[in-house]
């Protein structure tokens, strides 16, 4: 090694580090990747929020591309995304299933009565067991499920038009082509 290359070594090291550190800046350290990407959606069978006599389960997710939205009335982000979910349901882009997570039934029902119900069906997960099975760590979370009932993608935080166009539209196009 000539002295010149030796003196240049730190500079080379910095040049190599820059893109790595830059990528590090982009990633959100609090984000936990879902363990179910590419795997079957975790089994659940929950009483429906609106009609406890009926059930909503993993079987309902078979044979179509759908969303599974985790929501609760105590969750501020859920209120923030609700109007957008209403838009999605009006546009009939994709069926939206829901898990009403650790909530109170009367409160949840009055929320839907007041703000509208964008869901095909909401399962009522009162004690949060199904939430744990899905690896939920905070509401809202939105899972994209393919026709075989496998999880393709998970989005954490409130959905809006911009994140929808960016994250969901291309994936759904891929799944339905």
């Amino acid at each position: 090694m000539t002295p010149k290359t030796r003196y240049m070594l730190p500079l080379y090291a910095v040049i190599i580090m820059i893109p790595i550190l830059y990528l590090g800046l982009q990633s959100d350290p609090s984000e936990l990747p879902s363990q179910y990407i590419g795997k079957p959606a975790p089994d659940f069978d929950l009483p429906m929020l609106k009609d406890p006599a009926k059930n909503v389960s993993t079987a309902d997710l078979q044979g179509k591309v759908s969303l599974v939205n985790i929501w609760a009335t105590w969750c501020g982000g859920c209120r923030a995304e609700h109007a957008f979910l209403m838009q999605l349901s009006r546009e009939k882009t994709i069926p939206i299933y829901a898990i009403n997570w650790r909530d109170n039934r009367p409160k949840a029902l009055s929320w839907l009565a007041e703000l509208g119900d964008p869901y095909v069906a909401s399962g009522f997960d009162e004690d949060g067991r199904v939430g744990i099975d899905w690896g939920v760590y905070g509401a809202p979370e939105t899972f994209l499920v393919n026709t075989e009932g496998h999880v393709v993608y998970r989005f954490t935080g409130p959905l809006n038009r911009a994140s929808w166009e960016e994250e969901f539209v291309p994936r759904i196009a891929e799944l339905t082509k």
Partner: protein
Amino acid sequence: MMQRIVIFFTFIFLTVTAFAIDTGKAFDDPAMQARYEHLIAEIRCVTCQNQTIKDSNAFIAADLRREIRRLMEEGKDDDEIADFLVTRYGDFVLYRPRFAGKTLALWIAPFLLVLFGGFAIFRVIRHRMTLSVDEDGKAQ
């Protein structure tokens, strides 16, 4: 007067604020309870990521404690309980990552770095030993 003030402040500082985080019922068997306390001190709260579920009062932590309690009552051992959590939340949920798979680099990297650094130091020292020194004490 002074004495009273001293006593007053002494007692002020002696008070310890205690919040009962885990409100679940203790196991009847002290050994089970000890195992439970040990387990929950090893599991990361997934929303408040620098706390264990033992220290966190987030409701998800309470849910995870309840699940661990239930699994223990079902007779699951510690590995099975860790598996249950890792399947759902990934390796990150364990405070002490396992020595396998994706976490292998975490365990091995420090030793590799020490080896690499030691080798570099060895090379530098050996190189310096070969340098001759002139009368002024400067390396040539």
